[in-house]
Structure formats: C-alpha cells, structure tokens
C-alpha cells in the first residue's frame, strides 16, 4: 500500500488526508500544534452564510477517524529522498517513510503590530479580525466596547496590497470577512455605527456581493473608501483614526470604541521552513510556487512532493477544500502513472 505523509492539520491537510484514506492509501497527518483545525478552528461564524466554523472542523475531524494516523505536536526536522521514497525525520526522532508528501502548511496572519501607525498592541481598543472572532466566541463583545462613541471601525488590507510592508498581493478573503464581521457587529450591537475603511472591495465569490448589499441595505454598515493613515488614543481611551474619504475628497477624523484590523495572509513559518528544507521554489509573494501556475498547481518541482491549500497563496475555505481534493487526485495519478515532473 502506498504511503502519504500530509504536513499541516488545517482544513487543507484534514480534507486531503480524509480523501487519500478513502482512496485506500496509508496516510499520516503531521501537525505541529496540539490540535487540528488550523486558523478556522479559531473562527466563530463563516461567510457568506454565517455558518458556525465549528461545523466544518467537526465534519473534517469525523472523516479522519480511524483512517488517518494523526501526530499532533509534531514537527518535521528533515526530509530526504532515497529510492523513490521520502524519509521524514520528526522532532520525536521517529523517522517515517512515504511514497509522496503533501505540504498543507498554510499561512500565518500578518502581524498587525508591524503596521505601527495603527497601534496594535499599544492602544487598548485596537484589535485584529482574529481577536474579534475570539471575542464573538467568548460572548464578551459588550465588555470590550466602552460605549463612549458608539462607533466601530474596520480597516481593510492590513498587511496586504501594501508596498511599505513588502506584501503587494491581495489576501482575497479579508474584504468579505470585514463585511461579515460588520453585519455581526450590527446584529450584536444595534446602537453602534460600523464603518469599513477600504481601498476597493473585492467581492469575488458566490454570494459575496449579496452579503455586501445586505450589509448596506439591511444593516446600515457604512463603507468609506480610503486608507486609515494613523490611529491614536484620546483621554477617554477612545481610538481616534485619521482617514481620507477619497469619494468625498476630504480627510476624516473619527473617534471609535473599537478599531478592527483585517490582517492579511503571509506564508506560515512552517511553509517557509518546509520550502527551505526541500529547496522548493517560492513566488515573489514568498508563498510556495507550483510547478505550473495553470496545469500543475498542486505539484512542486520535486517528484512526489505536492502542495495544497494556502501554502501556495491566500484562499477561502471553499477554495482550500477544492484545492485539497485536486491535490489528492494528482497524488493518485502520480501513483498510477508515476508522472515525472522535469525541471
């Protein structure tokens, strides 16, 4: 029986592991954290249908049951190819052997403190979208807002499409996340105004535009086209932001109870490290580069090493699942045909 080692226990790793096991392969899933689920496990509700994130993770976990050997709290230390197989040494000193490797090592969120002007980690009421999901989950939203201004701001493209931080790419899902979170805030705090500060809104997915319209028409969310230049704190502890409203053609200064930063994707430390260990190619965005951007999107340049999910760039959950399944088919084809990718 062919062996596959899947590295990364987020949505891509879990979905691909379950699919590979269903196809009859022996699968080992290696995850550095102490539990599965990746970033989605931290999320509360998902766009575009407000579905609990928990449902996705629970469903994926259920499909792994008994079919996949899961190694939690485990990191890959080295990988070597011998006689068509990969020897993977783990930090537990155990060495696993596999006929194929699937990298599903995902992304990290852009560290918001790098945008120093927004004061994350300095001003008390500046948080990230991920922090807000945690607040939603804890049910403590009202404790977080002071009620001084009854206004909340959401900043788009924090660490994305930003030459200053060296990330020129779009992280794709932040726009719709901002719309989703704005609606959730208006639902939970109807007396609050919610402002989204954006460059342009990229509602690329099915129903995303509907969500954007719903935010405006049903929930009265205000969208201001302009980048926030700086945040600060006034004597009452409110966050004061400066932004240019480029449609009205004038600068704005607004005091808020809470400022939420929609941080984008960056390659995870694991993705960068695995790429270095295997000497894989990286794109200009520092995510892993597939063997061919159109035809071999799940292949790396190395024979038997495949890629799935956000290790090759920002993706939504639905896209990640589709990508994971595509990677599984490529692995099956590889075992069947022993297709060799020539450099």
């Amino acid at each position: 029986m062919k062996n596959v080692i899947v590295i990364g226990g987020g949505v891509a790793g879990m979905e691909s592991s379950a699919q590979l096991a269903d196809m009859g392969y022996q699968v080992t899933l290696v995850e550095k954290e102490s539990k599965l689920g990746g970033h989605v496990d931290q999320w509360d509700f998902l766009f575009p249908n407000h579905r609990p994130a928990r449902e996705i993770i629970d469903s994926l976990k259920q499909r792994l049951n008994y079919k996949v050997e899961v190694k939690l709290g485990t990191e890959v230390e080295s990988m070597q190819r011998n006689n068509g197989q990969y020897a993977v040494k783990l930090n537990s000193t155990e060495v696993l052997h596999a006929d194929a490797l699937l990298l599903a090592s995902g992304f990290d969120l852009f560290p918001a403190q790098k945008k120093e002007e927004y004061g994350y980690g300095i001003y008390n009421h500046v948080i990230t979208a991920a922090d807000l999901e945690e607040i939603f989950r804890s049910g403590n939203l009202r404790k977080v807002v002071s009620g001084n201004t009854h206004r909340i701001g959401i900043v788009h493209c924090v660490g994305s499409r930003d030459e200053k931080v060296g990330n020129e790419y779009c992280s794709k899902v932040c726009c719709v996340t901002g719309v989703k979170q704005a609606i959730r805030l208006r639902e939970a705090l109807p007396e609050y105004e919610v402002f989204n500060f954006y460059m342009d809104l990229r509602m690329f997915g099915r129903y995303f535009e509907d969500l954007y319209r719903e935010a405006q028409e049903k929930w009265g969310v205000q969208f201001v086209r302009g980048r926030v230049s700086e945040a600060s704190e006034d004597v009452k502890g409110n966050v004061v932001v400066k932004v240019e409203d480029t449609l009205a053609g004038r600068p704005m200064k607004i005091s808020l109870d809470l400022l939420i930063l929609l941080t984008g994707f960056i390659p995870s430390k694991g993705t960068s490290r695995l790429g270095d260990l295997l000497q894989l190619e990286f794109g200009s965005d520092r995510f892993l580069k597939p063997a061919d951007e159109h035809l071999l999107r799940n292949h790396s340049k190395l024979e038997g090493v495949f890629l799935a999910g956000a290790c090759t760039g920002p993706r939504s959950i639905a896209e990640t699942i589709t990508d994971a399944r595509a990677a599984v088919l490529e692995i099956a084809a590889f075992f069947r045909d022993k297709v060799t990718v020539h450099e």
Partner: protein
Amino acid sequence: MKLEGKKRIWSEYQKEIADDHYYYARSCIRQNFFPASETIFLRIMQQELGKDIKDDARHTTCTGIAYHSDLVPFDTTMTVVARLFSLMTEAGYENYAPSCITSFGLYSEILETWEHHPEIEARVREHLWKSTRREFKKPKNLAHASDIVYKFRHRIAEKGKYRLVNHKTGEPLKVVEHIGCHYSRMFPHKGVGGAEYPYVLVGMIEAWGGEVVDYPERRHCCGFGFRQYLVKSNRGYSISSSRKKFESMEPFKPDMIITNCPGCPYFLDRWQYAISEMEGKTYGENGNGIPVLTYEETAGLVMGYDPWDLGFQMHQVSVEPLLDKIGVPYDPYAKYLGVNGKFIGTPEHPEVLKVY
C-alpha cells in the same frame, strides 16, 4: 495604553550614538529663537560630562530650509553639505552632531543617497573640489544632539538638582514630547524609537522623572512645515496646525512641552500667544500657556542652572509656573537683566495670555 507594546517597538529602533569626540553643527535659527539652548548643550557636554566637542565657527547653513522650500537644488545642497563634512575631516573628527533636526534629516538623506548612488557622491566630490579644492571623509557616526543627550540622560539625572516632578505633590509632571518631522519619519531606523513612537525625548522625560502624555495629534506637524509659514499667505495653515495640537493635548492637562527641533518650540510657543489674542483661548492653567522647552533647556533645568541663563526670558509663554511646580528658585527682578547686568527692558504684556 499598553507600555509593553511601545517598549517592543523601541527595542527594534536603537541606533549607534558615538560616546565622545563630536563635531557640532549649530542650527541657523535656534540662536535667535531659544538662544541659550546650544550653549547649554555645550556646557553640559564639556563641563558636566567631560566630552570633547568641536564648535566650529566656519560652518554654514546646510541649506535645509531652502532645500525643503524648493529654492535650492539637491546638487547644491549636497555640495554645501560636502563642505561641512570637509570641515569636520579637517578638524580631525569623525562623529557629526547636528543641532538641527532638518539638518539631521538632510544629512541622513544625503548619506543614504550616496550609499545607493556612488556616482552621485563622486559627482559631488568633484563639485566640491572644483569650487573649493576641498576633500572630505563621510562621518562614521551621525547622531542628532538630542540623541547624544538621550545617551547621557541618566548621567544628567544623576548629576542634576531637580526632577520633572511637582515638588508639592510628589506627582510626576505631565510632559508632551514633540519630535521634529525630519528626525525619523524619512528613515525610521536612524531615530531612537523609530518614526511612529520615537523614544528619544520619552527616554529623557522618563529618566528625569516626568510622565509622558500621548495624545491624538502627537504626530501632527508643529505648524512650521516650511512653506506653511514661509509663504505669508499660507500662515493660516501654520497656526491651525499648532491649534489642532493644543486642542488635542489640552484634555490631558500637560505641564510642559519638550521638543527637539529648531522650528517646533518656536511655533508651539509663539502661536499660543497669537491664538490667545485671536480667540481669547489659553491652554495652560489659570490663563497661563503651556511652557515649551527645548531638550537642552530641560536638561539645564534638571542640572539646576539659573533659569535666566537658560534663556527662559526669551519665551513667549512664561516658564515661571513650571519653575514653581518643580521648585526651582528664580529672581523675578533678574529676568530682564542682560549678561552685563544692565536692564534690557520688559516686553509689552499681551491682553489674554498671562505673562510674568
């Protein structure tokens, strides 16, 4: 406010500041605006800290104000600066210490330009040679004079007589720090603490016992902004910028403002008078203004120098309420005595802003 967040940023933006042997470049305008500041810096460096610092009468403007007002082209500016570096080289120094923030920003810009474009440096060397027959070495260390005071802030505190503390209540004074725009905004790594949360003055305030006020318009321009003031018809921008800052800091009830730029203390000091005349508004307690001090004046205050030797009589906003808070004695009758002991006259008192 989470101080740990700021500390993390401060730790990322530390710079090398030479320990001794500085070539000092004075500012074009500071000796008129706050005339004791540079003298006090030299006194502290030479007499209190025993440092070797060269005060060279031959140096000229760096052209910064004219350069940033689009009056002098960059090639001319670079050649003038090259001459200043040649004076430093000739005097046998390697550590350049400008008094002016605009100069510091301009030197940083020029050195960075030369690093990336050696052909420009070669061209400037040729210009300098053709026009003056001079040659130069680039500074090994470039530190603004406020960087140097920051470096020795704890020694100044140890030697000092006073702290930035209300001597009656024991409470730290609330201090607004204002950093010149050209200090670190262009090159965050060339300033102590970076561009968004500069630490250079905060470090002094902390070391000398004060409490720093972080207010919403902290990063906003003082009001000078070069053409905002130099072009007469633009001066509304200048005073509105200063006013915006005062309105923003007022709720924090600051006891004083400290600056590290030639223009900033001037505009923050003088415009308080103008606003009081135009709007009947003052920003300190009981009709007083908020005293605006340079970091050298503040260091001199901490050292216990006579307030009139620090040039406080040249301030528009009276410093006496601050001296009273700290417990610094002063002779009000000596305020307007010249260095020769003769009375130089009392300026006219404004109608709204209280002066002493």
